[in-house]
């Protein structure tokens, strides 16, 4: 079996950089706000707040009304997709960082 080591840390950093820092249809600041809110961060402006919080806490409970309000304000499917992705990535990378920190700090007796 080949044993080349997957560089997850570099891939996570690239995902974070692309979703939250680089130019796209939506402003990076709004994507950062969505990501932080989905990871349990401070409230942001409506209607983004409701969607980001819901995606972070329990995405299966997201309603069409929550999504439609953001789609309307965002102005395009592409922009709405970026904001959904920002919330989803924010919630997931919070878990990635918590998991890595626990692994890095763990010591064996």
């Amino acid at each position, binding site marked *: 079996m080949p044993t080349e080591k997957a560089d997850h840390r570099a891939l996570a950093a690239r995902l974070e950089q692309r979703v939250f820092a680089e130019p796209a249809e939506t402003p990076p600041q709004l994507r950062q706000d969505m990501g932080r809110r989905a990871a349990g961060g401070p409230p942001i402006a409506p209607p983004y707040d409701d969607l980001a919080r819901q995606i972070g806490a329990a995405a299966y409970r997201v309603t069409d009304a929550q999504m439609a309000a953001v789609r309307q304000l965002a102005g395009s499917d592409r922009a709405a997709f970026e904001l959904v992705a920002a919330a989803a990535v924010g919630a997931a990378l919070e878990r990635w960082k918590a998991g890595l920190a626990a692994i890095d700090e*763990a010591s064996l007796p």
Partner: protein
Amino acid sequence: MRLAEIDRGDSLGNRLLIHFISLVSGMRLPDAARAAFYHRDFLGILGEWTQVAMRDPSQWSVGERELMAALVAKWNSCAFCVGAHRATSARGLTRATVDAALADYHTAPLPLGLIATLGFLEKLTRTPDDVSAADAAAVLQAGVTREALTDAVAVATVFGVITRHADTLKFALPTEAEFDKAADMLLRRGYA
């Protein structure tokens, strides 16, 4: 709410690809694949990481990683991803083992290191603020290496994104037979 542009594809090339794969496979291309094709300039990196996490060399087999994905989906109540990764995992681990793990992984016929790892992933998925170094140490004591545990956390992370997409964007739920066909595609073509 579904986004029409994901459904139909956002370029002529993607529209043709969606049509072609649907034709060849004899089923509607699942929404997860349509979403992976969409706005690749923005989120193509997620597909790249998912491919590495799920298919690159690892101490976990492909079937074991697909089971981790199915369980992350269960903990996030994502029916689409449970169906997709239950079917794919069953190709490596048997349907009975996968269904036992989905019912209760603590008592399923799985290696002890995998059961300990799943416990870590469950806590990380449900209550990330409560995860501690002691939790990771317990998994290491079960014989799992740091590298293998990191590989598992990568699987949970990419599926933390994908399950949220599936539920927010209301991915259409294929039938069990269609999930089985899609499992062939996931094993043959991968995620990138």
